């Protein structure tokens, strides 16, 4: 078991993480947790980028991950501000209690 782990394993792991993230986004009521699940998905994708960068010996994957991190930071800042404001207005952070945008 001292042989290096095949790169495909990393990809499978990232698929699993992504799947867990999807379930989190869909199944949890708490919007903050939903948000965290989104971060989980982003990280799963980051892992694939780094894996492919390793496989193709290219730095491009790393650069993309760098960008994903920056975008995730921006997204977290704005998203959490929105949740904060939502909580002030509705006293809730539950996704299924905020359904104003419907028919």
């Amino acid at each position, binding site marked *: 078991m001292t042989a290096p782990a095949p790169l495909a394993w990393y990809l499978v792991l990232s698929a699993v993480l992504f799947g867990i993230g999807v379930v989190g986004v869909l199944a949890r009521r708490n919007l903050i947790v939903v948000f965290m699940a989104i971060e989980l998905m982003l990280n799963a994708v980051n892992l694939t980028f780094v894996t492919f960068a390793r496989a193709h010996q290219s730095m491009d994957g790393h650069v993309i991950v760098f960008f994903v991190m920056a975008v995730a930071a921006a997204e977290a800042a704005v998203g959490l501000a929105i949740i904060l404001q939502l909580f002030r207005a509705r006293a809730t952070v539950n996704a299924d209690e*905020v359904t104003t*945008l419907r028919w």
Partner: protein
Amino acid sequence: MVTAEPLLRWIVLLPALGFLWNATVGQRAPRTSAVVGPGAVGAAFAIAIVTVLRLHGLEGGQGDGPPMLHDLVYRWIEVGPFHSDVAFRLDAISAIMVLVVTGIGFLIHVYSLGYMHDDPCFARFFTYLNLFITAMLVLVLADNLLLLFVGWEGVGLCSYLLIGFWYEVEANAIAGKKAFLVNRVGDASFVLGLFLLVQHTGTLDVAELQAKAGTLAGTMVGPMTLATLVCLLLFGGATGKSAQIPLFVWLPDAMAGPTPVSALIHAATMVTAGAYMVTRLYFLFDLAPAALAVIAWIGALTALVAATIAIAQADIKKVLAYSTVSQLGYMFLGLGVGVTGAALFHVVTHAFFKGLLFLGAGSVIHGMHGEQDMQKMGGLRRHMPGTYWTMLVGTLAISGVPFLSGFYSKDEIIAGAFLGPHPQPLLGVIGYVVAVLTAFYMGRLFFLTFFGEERFDHHHVHPHESPWSMLGPLVVLAVLSAVGGALDVPGQVNHFIGAHHEEATPFGMLVLAGALAFLGLGAAWYAYVREPSLPEQAATAAGGLYRFLRDKWRVDELYDAIVVRPLFALAEFLARIVDPDFVDGAVNGIADVVAWLSSRWRRLQTGNLQHAALSFLVGALVLLGYFVVH
């Protein structure tokens, strides 16, 4: 022989920068426009002189073609094999035009300083003027027809803006629209010509066209060769911009309202665009004798018709406007009979003396507090001596009095009609007739304005001489009008085109021309100074003809009847019947269907974030499944 010359772009850029300045900073600080506006054009003029001198210094090598300066700014469009650059070329033809445009343009700017001094929209005026000069320079310097067309349209836009400059007066706004719309007709024709060129040669570059033009003469389209068709279409554009039959109606209207200065910039520069374009593409027109014949005929007829109308006009600027149309007719006559050099020569001299006349008329109007009716002037030579003397030079020059500039250029054209490469003797005769008419109506204008009794209202009008910023350009132009005939424009142009050198005009013709000029002027003197009652009697005697001429051959009415009214009727039909019933029906029908579907489908929109996310997931799964399966 092509030499790179990066200075060329600055000729265009400087007025463009002036335009930007006047459009932004100038609006807040109009005084700066007084410096920047004329300064930019003056600087462009200086650069133009420098580059033209450099061009002159180049020797045309054997087989390399005539010398030419070229400045590639950047590749503008590249689509498949077709490409178009923003690039400028300076050769003998464009050199002449660049000097005329920047030089005359500069004088007009200086003159405007005085004329527009009290206008509240001072900066806006210079904004338009600078933009106009920019567009005109693009037109003149363009090394391909697409860029030329940009300038062409830019000039059209500026003419619209300038004619409607005092848009508070509705007549001006209408005149602007008329100019714009009439020009659109011509432009459409021009664009069609360009399309044909691209379709059959795949290029709009002047140099490449020259190489490929031959193929156009061989292809037949219906009864004519492709070259003829292209030339006629291009000439259609020229009739719009250069105010020829049938599209000349906008130019006189353009004079009706706004400033003589803006009117002048049309007369001296923009209207020459058509003639310039034909000269530029003469290698193409040379292949289409039929088209040349059409051009010659239209030129001659325009000259004649416009001259007859000019005789019966009372408005000083309208006389000059029709005179412009008439002189442009000469130019096209020259082009049509193949004496390109003479035609371009006339463009130059005409720019001088028509510029002078317009500015003089402007000076008169300025001194008369906006009065434009010659019936209400008279005896002004005592009040405005400077204007009087310079106008005298201009009048003599345009009438073709020997040894002044107009004499040379006009005679070369008429001589060309008899002796040129594509002679049309009948048109030569018309040329002579128009020469007499020209001398007569110009004499009429001159004598009505400056001689005779003072017919204006002394209580309200106190004629005064104009300021030096207006008189200065007048003097400069007067000198140029007087000695402009000494320029060897035809020689330059012919050398460039590589055309047959024109024969020297026979001495008999020169004498005849001189005599006709004096005949016309003399008749005018007799009718308006010696026997002032004569015109009244003549008008009464030939009442119908007089009214026909005064109403400008009723062309506007004709167009109204055959074009405008049917169009209105069609529009009415569309608005009353087609739009409400068919178009609205279709639109509302689609909307109703969508609305009904939406009322069903909107159940899907629960407003729950996670339901939306679930639909994401489904989509992602479908896509992913597709990729994995394949």
